[in-house]
């Protein structure tokens, strides 16, 4: 029973947590904005004062900036494409009744429990390494030259490693969606003359739209900030071939020790994330309605 007074009481009761959450969000953001307009270098503490927009213009004029932005978007887009496509396929595969289904599903999920730097190290040293790697051994076994994954295809390798980590997440969410599909719907479609491909196209895929949307939104949030895998494997290289926006910010903050520029990069990242979020919600928000 929502009367006038009970609604007022409800607002009053949630007010403390709303205020706390607002402060929680606004203070770091305000501090970052503040620093982004300051001269704040740890290596030359004697210099301080307002920097104006110079921290920002430095980023925009940096030769790596647009490469960093496009690499960031490439990473997000590439990982999303791989995890969604293979997530749907693997989910359909392990949804089949097979012997050992429980352990099989745990195996499929397990990469998600491996910490990002560990996962990156495993791939770098055990698989992609040009001398010791399994893939190099396989290439030599076939009489080919080992491929220098991280040197020749740095972005593709990073995208692959991150996809390996996030595929289980996508699979898990999509599998639960698949399990809620009524078998009678599929049988009805079968009676209606739909081929297996048509059943997937017209029944299974529309049923999974909402789950796919959820996977895209959640993964985008995390993928925009991917850093550990790049730091562990390519260090943004060779040259700056695999530099992303988060990695540029890291370089300013912890290598150049210029907090002002790093803060400006952070604000640019926030703006980028909001632009991506805007387009995502525009194009897919309607799928989230009941």
């Amino acid at each position, binding site marked *: 029973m929502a009367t006038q007074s009970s609604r007022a009481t409800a607002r009053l009761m949630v007010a403390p947590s709303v205020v706390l959450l607002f402060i929680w969000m606004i203070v770091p953001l305000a501090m970052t904005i503040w620093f982004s307009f300051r001269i704040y270098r740890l290596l030359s503490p004697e210099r301080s004062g307002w920097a104006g927009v110079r921290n920002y213009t430095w980023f925009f004029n940096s030769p790596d900036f647009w490469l960093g932005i496009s690499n960031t978007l490439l990473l997000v887009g590439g990982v999303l494409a791989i995890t969604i496509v293979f997530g749907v396929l693997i989910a359909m595969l392990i949804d089949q009744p097979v012997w050992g289904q429980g352990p099989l599903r745990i195996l499929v999920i397990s990469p998600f429990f491996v910490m990002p730097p560990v996962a990156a190290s495993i791939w770098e040293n055990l698989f992609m390494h040009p001398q010791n790697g399994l893939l190099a051994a396989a290439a030599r076994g076939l009489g080919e030259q080992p491929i220098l994954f991280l040197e020749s295809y740095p972005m593709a390798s990073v995208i692959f490693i991150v996809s390996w980590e996030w595929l289980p997440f996508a699979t898990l969410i999509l599998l639960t969606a698949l399990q809620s599909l*009524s078998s009678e719907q599929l*049988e*009805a479609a*079968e009676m*209606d*003359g739909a081929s297996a491909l048509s059943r997937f196209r017209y029944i299974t895929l529309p049923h999974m*739209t909402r789950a796919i949307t959820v996977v895209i939104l959640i993964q985008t949030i995390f993928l925009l900030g991917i850093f550990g895998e790049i730091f562990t494997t390519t260090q943004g290289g060779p040259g700056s071939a695999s530099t992303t926006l988060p990695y540029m910010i890291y370089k300013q903050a912890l290598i150049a020790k210029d907090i002002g520029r790093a803060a400006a990069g952070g604000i640019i990242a926030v703006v980028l994330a909001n632009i991506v979020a805007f387009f995502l919600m525009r194009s897919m928000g309607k799928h989230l309605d009941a």
Partner: protein
Amino acid sequence: MGKIVLKSVRKSFGDVHVIPSVDLTIENGEFVVFVGPSGCGKSTLLRLIAGLEDTTSGIIEIDGKDATALPPAKRGLAMVFQSYALYPHMTVRKNIMFPLKMAGMDLAAATKKADAAAKVLNLTSYMERKPGQLSGGQRQRVAIGRAIVREPAAFLFDEPLSNLDAALRGNMRLEITELHQTLKTTMIYVTHDQVEAMTMADKIVVLQAGNIEQVGSPLELYNHPANAFVAGFIGSPHMNLLTGSDAQAEGALTIGVRPEHLDISTTAGKWKGVVSVAELLGSDTFLHVNVEGHGTMTVRGGGDVNLRHGDTVYLTPQPDKMHRFGTDGKALA
């Protein structure tokens, strides 16, 4: 057109023989109802005919052609599911047109057919809605519409009314019966409700544990049940089945008397009992009577029977309406 013949059809899931062996002929244009208690295999039998389950052995013929190995879509049958199985993300129109689209029919012709089906089923004003915005009865009609447009050789209904409330169920029962009279297409209808079976069927198939107990018209089954199971299953309220000396006196293991074939008297009769519950329906009165030596018997009297809890009554069976069953449960001539 829609003649369906089952020849020693068997179905096993592992060691469980759901359908030991069934022989059945369904004539073109017949309304056949499979009825039986839950778990009797009636739905499995329907799914075997539909092709949604593989037959373990035996032959299913549709229109004189062996269809045992054909996939469901190639059998020319349409099915209405218990959950309706509508496609939730499609509008009513798209739902109804889906089988036509799958058959590769061009859009204009498919739209025309869908509109015609919608008109028959009073769905015209709902065509652009999604199934989630429809009531149970309307969803049911959409499911039927999706079946009609395919112009199938036979319709299969799998307990289609069990999700509806009592009033709506009565209406839909009538609508499906009328539809059958209009289309004159073979219909196979699965239900556990013997009232639906009695009111709709040309031919009832009573199943128990995967075996056909009896096949016949509703009144044949009512008047001449082949065994004690059919006798107890068909008819509402259930037939009173009695054993002991009264049955032996008739030369049978069990005798059965329907509630409507017991005469009620307050003074004298064959069995003496005490009324435990009297259900007054206005047109009828159902008495549940505790009879010495036989337990509770159900009696159907007219609306004017004025007996209450605790009253003593005497019951006498109408001798020519008594059913006698032998030791194997089969009816004695």
